[in-house]
Structure formats: structure tokens, C-alpha cells
């Protein structure tokens, strides 16, 4: 990975699509990021959502829910000229952190499922996943190559 590429940090609820070579970084706990890459048209996109589905009582930001964030990411990719047929996907996150507080675990799984389901529906091939577990991840997405580096707190540090 080129170290001299511009680095962009993607926060919770963020959606980022570009044609330029940059490194997009984000840190995930129970949240999920879908990285889409159209190698043919050299267009890359990534999101970072928190919950699988929109709460019926409120809409909130589009980027916060997988149900709305993934279609928005896909739409932005297509607007930039990407094609579903040449896109691949990588899915990250959805850790069951703080599993002692049990209400969280279903959300992590739901976040992963909504990503997989959406890729199936859109016939986008998922070429890599690193999901679940009980530790957070920092990911670095190179929009030039589509490669993603994942870092977790090591065993020594994870206690």
C-alpha cells in the first residue's frame, strides 16, 4: 500500500465514493463497513453504518442504517459511472463487543446480514469478509487497488 496517498477518515454514518487513489480509514466495533470496488471503471466506495434497519419511530441519517446506507452507497457508485456487473464487495466489522450487555449481539449479526443480503440482491460478488468475533477492527481501504488492510488489537494487548 502506498504510504504517500492522502488519508481520509470515515466516521459513523459516513459514505464515501471516489475515483481518486486515497486511503480511507475507519474503526469498527459492532458497526459494519461495506467496501465496493469497480476495478474496470476504477471507482471505489465505502460506508460505515451502525444499525441494520431504520427504526420505525424515526428516520435519522441515511448513513446510520445498513438498510439505507448500502443503497445510498451503491447509488453514488452508479452515479459516478460504476457498474454492478464489474463491482466486488468486501465486508468488515460486526464484532460482538461487550457481549455481557446481551442486547448488542443481535445488532452485530443484523449488521452483517443486511450487508450480505444486499450484495446477494444486487448480484455483487463478495470477495472477502472479516466479520464477527469480539474485537474491534481498524480498516484501511486503498481506493486505487481495492485492497483492504485490517488491524485488530493483538492478543498480548487484548487481555
Amino acid at each position, binding site marked *: 500500500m502506498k504510504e504517500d496517498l492522502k488519508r481520509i477518515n470515515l*466516521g459513523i454514518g459516513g459514505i464515501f465514493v471516489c475515483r481518486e487513489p486515497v486511503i480511507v480509514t475507519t*474503526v*469498527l*466495533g*459492532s458497526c459494519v463497513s461495506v467496501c465496493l470496488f469497480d476495478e474496470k471503471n476504477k471507482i471505489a466506495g465505502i460506508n460505515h453504518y*451502525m444499525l441494520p434497519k431504520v*427504526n420505525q419511530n424515526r428516520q435519522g441519517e441515511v448513513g446510520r442504517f445498513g438498510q439505507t446506507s448500502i443503497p445510498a452507497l451503491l447509488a453514488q457508485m452508479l452515479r459516478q459511472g460504476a457498474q454492478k456487473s464489474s463491482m466486488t464487495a468486501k465486508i468488515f466489522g460486526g464484532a460482538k463487543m*461487550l457481549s455481557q450487555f446481551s442486547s*448488542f449481539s443481535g445488532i452485530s449479526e443484523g449488521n452483517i446480514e443486511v450487508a450480505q443480503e444486499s450484495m446477494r440482491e444486487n448480484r455483487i460478488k463478495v470477495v472477502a469478509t472479516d466479520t464477527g468475533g469480539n474485537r474491534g477492527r481498524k480498516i484501511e481501504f486503498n481506493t486505487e487497488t481495492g485492497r483492504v488492510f485490517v488491524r485488530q488489537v493483538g492478543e498480548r494487548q487484548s*487481555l
Partner: protein
Amino acid sequence: MGESRSFDSGSIEKIQKIFETGAQKARESLRLMMNRNLEINVLGARIMPFEEVSRFRFPEDVPVAMIVLRLLGEGEGFFAFVMFEESAKKVNQILWEEVPEASEVLNISNISALKEMGNIVGSCFLNELSNSSGVELRPSEPVFVYDLMAAIIDTLLIEQSFTSDNAILLDTEIRSPEEGIALDIMFLPSGQLLEVLQGGLENA
């Protein structure tokens, strides 16, 4: 952000004052526990977007040690004690009167001591909040987690995100510069808890 607009600034100021009283009690409890006078400062209440909470005071991609207490009772939320590993070791050096090697990781005893500290300090704040508002609140068993700051925070904010676009953070610091101790306490109430507290404080 629905609930934070309806939650008036007067109530936030009241909670801050309650926390200042809680801080005095926590300071005394820590003095007895650690035989040290630690500074505990309530820095204020902030309303901020979720993504800013995870990089508030600590870099988001750096591992931190965190003791988390879930609030139980009439409302939900979290108390989180955040520190770098070095501070966690310093606290243990004082509590156990032994100096671990720099390379030594936190062991079960160390983690247990940190949990106990979190429990004691958290209870001081929560008791004060309950007594002043009439809202029943109690802490869960403390949970220790060591991971990337933003990864922990995004999990803690899930419940808030059901009802809000922003987080409400009451920020408190525990410091002992001469001992090299620096902890931050984050109080992250849910929108529902804020509403209940506001009602309780109005009637108090």
C-alpha cells in the same frame, strides 16, 4: 435530535451540579481506597455527533482500557472509565503496592481492581443522581474491555442511536499528574433516561 432539543439546558446544568457533588464523594472514596488525593473535575455536558464521541479526548484508533457500567433501573445509559494502559498500570501499582514490569500486561487481579474502582466511583455519581432526581438508577456489574477507542464507543452508542442523531456526554476527569494517572469518565445517557431525569429534577 429529538430528545436533546427537548432536554433543556437548565436540566443539564442541574445534572452537572449533581455530578460535582458526586465527584466530591468519589474523591473521598478514592482517597480511602488508594491513600491518594486525586483530582476529579466535572468538565461539562456536551451534545455532539456520534462520530465525535469516539475521538473525544482519546485517538479513535488507539487501544484503551475501559471499565463500563450499564445503567439499570428507570433509564438506560452507560458510565465508562477510559484510560490508557499506562494509567491502568499506575492505578494498580498504587492499589497493590507493587511495581509491575513495563512489559507486563494487566492480569486478572489488576482488572478486578480497576472494576472495583469503577464500581465505587460510578456508584458515587449514580447515588447522587438518584437521590437528587428521585429516579431509580443502579449500576450493572462492571465490565472491562481493552480495544480501540472508536470500536468500543460505537457499540456503546447503539442504544442512543435508536432515538437520536447525537450523543449527550457528561465529561469528567480523574487526574494525579505526579502519579501519572489520567482517567476520563464518560456518562452517556439514553434519550429516554434524559427525559425521565428531567421530569424527576423538575419535581425534586
